[in-house]
């Protein structure tokens, strides 16, 4: 076994290591130098396509056919996407391994599952006119640079919204890079453009010149977390600047005559320059080391390191993790190193093992932790084992130690080793795995159709397996040539009772593949009614979709189906569909009430809902702007009900309404054309209804007419509409009081009878403040008790009268009460009355 430090390289005081992941990657015929190579984050797939700008040897028509090839890191071809859609100007990956292809005309294709299915969208903002020059990608979006230096950013792929960023100067861009939104200060994507000798920083709102003169900068690279920026100047120097632009951290002179092909960050602590087969690794404080390869080398940056890819080998370059360094560095005297040594000695049955353990006893717990972590960072299974063995040994010596980390690490390593296997080709580092999360790893595996492994890992890590099953079933539906019944059977047998399995998704796939019957059968197994709806609509099973939507209770879904049906079906059959479904009808009604009254009219007509239809017309009459239109609508509304006896009352009211309106119209004409009569009383000008009677109710009309002393007209309405006597009396009273026709009120008090009694007269007049007239009604309130009448007199301020009232009733107590409240001459008078009252028996 080679030493773990064999591939270490010292750069300054730090160690870097090149781990050989896989060998014999590509066919030796493949001229990698003529290809553009991009790798998905977290050691994902690698996409290559031939760089059109470079000439290449003619190998017959077959080879000349352009394609984008997706490989695993180990060089297994996952998918070949034939390409004839135009010149590719941007190729990149998202965090969840979606492949994005941007063509010159601004069309973006998002290949979401590594299998050649894509969702297209366009950039817009003049991309088709000016052409896309290049693109830069981050974990969930990208920025495209157009021919006119406009920048378009897309920040999500599920609902892409291409946004134009601020517009930089139009001079040629030498090089550019982006700071992902998660790491920029403004929390939105920022673009660094090298134009001329200076740099511009562009975000959504402005393009700022950073005032540099040392340019032109040939390469710009942003560290994975945006904390550092690296620039390659024209004179062969590499500058490293802090992410907030506040200070220049280091400068390295490469002394190279030619500009390197690529410059990338290796994790966040070193910059890598690549020429054709030469690589410079520049660590902090400008110390550097150089590597040479046999063939053209491509750099694939990742969060915590860098993959180097040649025809022959795939290597992972990273800074040696601290724990690993602690354990393995030559001559390391750390407790962890001693623990490893002790474990080895134990294997050799050497007694020294115990001595060593006793030596590091105080820091043993830390040493165990370090060993566990170092094991995680190790790629070599042999060293993983020995580190874990050391940890286990250390653990056993300790009295109290939580083994959770140890157990977790063992599980994780098992998973990592499984996916690193060359047939799978996912050489995840421990940190990458932690950031990627196991769930995403599972979805990467299912996208590669590694169902068995995905299932095993899911079960091993206690993760849900529904997605894997669904994916498997979808794939089955796509590729299986068996007959539909047996596929359905197979799928149902395998997936039945598994929680979370969405049969809808499988059915959709089947439908998309043109297997309608299979889709219908599968859909029947879907327990969630709501989920079935969209697909059912797509399958033109409209009524079933409507029923399912109603079943789900979600009004949004029902509306959705209804909107769909409304557009598709002729009105009559649309009504037939909703007719038997009251919820649907109610929803159609309530939404149509605000938007589309014509539909409603038809609906009521077809359903023979006369009252509703007539009401609708009435409401239209109400909103009509001029009177004739209103009258017409009223007439229609009334006609609507004419055949039915049940609505006689309703119809009568409608006719009355029309009649009233017409009468009001004539009043208005008469009274306004003849102002002399209407302004008989000056106070009538206060009346709000003076200018218009139209729209008032019958009572209000009477009220206003009476107020303006048009008694005859008022009488006409009263008789015409058979306003009850009592109501009419009230109206008269209120109208007279509000117009302050006191004399007429007094006149009324002389009448013998009132249909509403006299008390209201007293109250209303008193409330209007006229005590004199109010008092006129007191004697008429014969139905009340003496005490009440006394109170009424008192309210009018007529104490003497109150006294007399009490006197007449021979009520001494009441009289004395009155006396108590009297003053001045009234008091004397009341006193006299008290005296007159015979002293009754007590």
């Amino acid at each position, binding site marked *: 076994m080679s030493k773990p430090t064999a591939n270490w390289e010292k750069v300054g005081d730090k160690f870097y290591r090149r781990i050989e992941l896989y060998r014999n990657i590509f066919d030796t015929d493949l001229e990698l130098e003529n290809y553009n190579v991009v790798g998905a984050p977290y050691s994902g797939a690698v996409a290559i396509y031939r760089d059109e700008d470079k000439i290449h040897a003619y190998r017959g028509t077959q080879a000349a056919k352009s394609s984008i090839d997706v490989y695993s890191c180990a060089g297994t071809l996952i998918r070949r996407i034939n390409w004839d859609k135009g010149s590719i100007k941007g190729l990149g990956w998202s965090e969840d391994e979606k492949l994005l292809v941007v063509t010159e005309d601004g069309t973006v294709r998002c290949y979401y599952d590594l299998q050649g299915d894509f969702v297209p969208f366009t950039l817009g903002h003049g991309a088709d006119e000016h052409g896309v020059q290049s693109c830069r990608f981050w974990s969930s979006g990208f920025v495209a640079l157009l021919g006119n230096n406009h920048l378009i950013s897309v920040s999500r792929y599920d609902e892409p919204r291409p946004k134009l960023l601020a517009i930089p100067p139009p001079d040629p861009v030498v090089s550019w890079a982006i700071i992902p939104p998660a790491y920029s200060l403004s929390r939105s994507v920022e673009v660094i453009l090298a134009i001329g000798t200076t740099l511009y920083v562009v975000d959504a709102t402005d393009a700022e010149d950073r005032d540099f003169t040392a340019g032109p900068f040939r390469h710009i690279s942003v560290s994975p977390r945006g904390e550092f920026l690296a620039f390659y100047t024209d004179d062969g120097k590499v500058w490293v600047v802090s992410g907030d632009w506040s200070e220049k951290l280091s400068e390295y002179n490469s002394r190279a005559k030619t500009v390197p092909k690529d410059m990338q960050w290796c994790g966040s602590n070193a910059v890598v320059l690549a020429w054709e087969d030469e690589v410079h690794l520049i660590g902090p404080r400008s110390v550097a080391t150089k590597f040479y390869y046999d063939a053209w080398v491509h750099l694939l940056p990742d969060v915590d390191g860098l993959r180097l890819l040649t025809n022959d080998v795939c290597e992972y370059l990273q800074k040696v993790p601290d724990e690993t360094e602690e354990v393995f560095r030559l001559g390391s005297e750390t407790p962890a190193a001693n623990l490893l040594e002790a474990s080895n000695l134990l294997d050799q049955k050497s007694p020294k093992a115990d001595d060593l353990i006793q030596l590091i006893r105080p820091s043993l717990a830390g040493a165990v932790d370090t060993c566990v972590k170092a094991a995680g960072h190790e790629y070599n299974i042999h060293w993983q084992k020995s580190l874990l063995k050391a940890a286990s040994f250390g653990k056993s010596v300790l009295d109290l130690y939580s083994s959770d980390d140890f157990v977790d690490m063992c599980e994780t390593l098992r998973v990592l080793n499984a996916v690193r296997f060359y047939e799978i080709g996912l050489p995840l580092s421990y940190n990458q795995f932690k950031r990627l999360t196991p769930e995403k790893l599972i979805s990467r595996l299912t996208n590669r159709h590694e169902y068995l492994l995905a299932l095993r890992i899911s079960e091993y890590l206690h993760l849900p397996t529904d997605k894997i099953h669904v994916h498997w079933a979808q794939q089955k539906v796509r590729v299986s040539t068996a007959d539909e019944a047996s596929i359905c059977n197979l799928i149902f047998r395998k997936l039945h009772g598994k929680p979370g399995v969405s049969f809808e998704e499988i059915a959709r796939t089947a439908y998309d593949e043109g297997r309608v019957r299979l889709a219908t059968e599968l859909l029947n197994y879907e327990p969630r009614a709501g989920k079935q709806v969209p697909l059912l609509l797509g399958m033109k099973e409209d009524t079933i979709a409507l029923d399912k939507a109603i079943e789900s209770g979600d009004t949004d879904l029902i509306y959705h189906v209804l909107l769909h049906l409304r557009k598709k079906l002729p009105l009559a059959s649309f009504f037939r569909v909703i007719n038997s479904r009251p919820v649907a009808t109610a929803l159609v009604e309530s939404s149509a009430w605000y938007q589309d009254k014509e539909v409603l009219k038809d609906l009521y007509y077809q359903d023979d809902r006369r009252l509703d239809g007539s009401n609708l017309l009435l409401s239209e009459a*109400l909103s009509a702007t001029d009177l004739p239109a209103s009258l017409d609508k009223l007439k229609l509304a009334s006609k609507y009900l004419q055949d039915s006896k049940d609505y006689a009352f309703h119809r009568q009211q409608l006719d009355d309404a029309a009649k009233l309106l017409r009468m009001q119209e004539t009043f208005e004409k008469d009274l306004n054309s003849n102002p002399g009569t209407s302004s008989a009383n000056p106070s009538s000008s206060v009346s709000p209804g003076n200018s218009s009677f139209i729209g008032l*109710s019958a009572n209000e009309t009477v009220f206003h007419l009476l107020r303006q002393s048009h008694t005859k007209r008022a009488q006409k309405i009263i008789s015409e509409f058979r306003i009850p006597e009592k109501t009419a009396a009230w109206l008269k009273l209120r109208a007279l009081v509000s117009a302050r026709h006191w004399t007429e009120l007094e006149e009324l008090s002389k009448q013998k009878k009132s249909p509403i009694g006299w008390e209201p007269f007293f109250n209303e007049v008193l409330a209007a403040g006229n005590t004199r007239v109010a008092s006129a009604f007191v004697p008429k309130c014969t139905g009340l008790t003496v005490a009440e009448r006394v109170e009424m007199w008192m309210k009018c301020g007529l104490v003497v009268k109150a006294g007399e009232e009490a006197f007449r009733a021979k009520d001494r107590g009441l009289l004395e009460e009155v006396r108590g409240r009297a003053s001045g001459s009234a008091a004397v008078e009341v006193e006299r009355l008290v005296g007159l009252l015979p002293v009754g028996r007590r």
Partner: protein
Amino acid sequence: MAPITPFNTSEISEKARRDLLLLLEGVRGKKNLVLEKALAGPLNLLVKFSTLQEYGVDRPFFLENDNVDSSQRNIVFLVRGEKAKTVLAVADQIKRLRRNGSIEHEFSILWVPRRTMVSDQLLEEAGVLGEASVSEWPLFFVPLADDVLSLELDDSVTDLYLRKDPTSIYLSAKALMLHQQRHGLFPRIIGKGENAKRLADLLIRMRTEVTAGESSNINGASFLGLTPSSTIDSLIILDREVDFPTVLLTQLTYEGLIDEVFSISANQTEVDSSVVGGAAPQPGQTGSASTTMKRKVMIDPKDSLYGTLGDANFAIVGNLLNKAARRLQSSTERNQLASKTTAELRDFVNKLPGYQAEQASLKLHTSLAEEIIKHTRTDIFTRSLEVQQNIMSGADPTTQHESITELISRDIPLPTILRLLCLECTTNAGMRPKDLEAFKRAIIQAYGPQHLLTLSSLEKMALLHPRGGSGLGATPAAKPGSVTNYTPLRRSLRLWDDEVNESEPNDISYVFSGYAPLSIRIVQSIIQKQTLANLIKPSSHPQAAAQANPLAQGLRIFDDATKYIRGATFDETQTGEEKAVKARSMLNGSHNDAAKTVIVFFLGGVTRAEISALRFIGRKLKEVGGEGRGSKIMICSTGVVKGGSLVGSAIEAERFG
């Protein structure tokens, strides 16, 4: 591990606030906020306007006013996406801004509480979907007080009973489901009413659907989420339809009367500034349009003074205010200060801000109470109250007709009249067709022919209908169980209490000075059986009172009573795997039966008087040795209603001319 208390209000508002601010943060730079009027109240409850400003909100606009301008590049819409009307309004405004705006806008739409397919479809048809970034603000329950959660769906009454649109049922189910997923299944769902039944069915349905889709969303609690909760006792769902009369009555609690007189929305009421004094406008208002003489006053349930006043019958509010004033005065008395030691003085000074706040609150409530007294002294108020009390106490309703006719002739506000008529109809299973027709004619003559529509709507809502026979064709013939029969209920549930004690209430009847709300009696028949049984049938031996009243066994009262009440009755138990149940009770600590929460959900709205009555029951349950074993009542609803808004939803606003 401390047990998770279900329905923790501060947690709910905190989450809603965080969600919104996060969404606002997502829109970079300054922005104009366009919100639906109905959302202004809840928003104000959750977030102060100054906080919104910190998150870049420049100016708020109302969607209904259609006046958002181009002063900012970013425009954020905050609207409910359930109704096509609002969606189209948003689309129109985007189009308008795009047409005449000089700058290119960035539009974001935050749908409340969820993004709907219909909204997407409509926006797409309008051609604006591609331009707006769409997200959702999952605001379901808004806490109005520590024990009151409201969905604040202002349209729910119109939707449910007039238009028969079940959107609010679905949203309620969603909201409750979210809580079930967090706190476990409601072990029992019991309730009354057709819509309530539908809600219960939906909940059960959603449960199976969530189980089916469970593992696709991995959150730690999910495997526990769908086992019966150990902290929740049951969910009681009441359909508003079951008990319309309680809404139609004039509420007589202080809070209820504030609502009746000034109307409260989202704990805020607008009062004429001459009443409460034109103090500086309250800081932190959203959408301050208070340049008029109206002043917005926060009715704060956390205010200690208001806490004692709000649920009390208005008759004793004067006394309470008096007492509070005297207490305040005595503690701030100047001559007392002289005799204090320095330590006492320091203590006093520390309390000063508290006193001042209390003083201000006292002043406010005194003037509010005075204003309400003015209102309650009017002839119209007393007359209509008299009619109400007579109807509720079971007098022959025809004796009240004269009063009602007179009130119509006096042209008092229409809602008051309609409340009285509907009250009669709903408590007496309709009205004699002849009388009904006469009233209809009177209303149309007095208030205008447009109210033909109002009356039709009321009939559709089953608030107004002729007795016995078929309605006017549109309403199907009355089936058995489609109307509530009050005559047996008055006796069997003791709905009318002649010996009501308002100052020291001993029964919920205090909230209406006599009438005990039917809805609350139903709740009592489930959670406070013993008390109710003793109330209905006081046992002959005083010693035996403590023992079980035979009526209190099982659900006897509930079963007996619900026979006479309209709508479906249901009682579902939700059980889960035994293992999971055990795991949950281990996690949350064993509770046995004590201190569980009972959730009472009012579908279609709850009145403030009912809230007060439930709080009264809640206090009784908490009492040591009470039969509730210290359980808590949580009131949830689609919104807060009152009689005016119930009949108001039917009233046709347009008129001829």
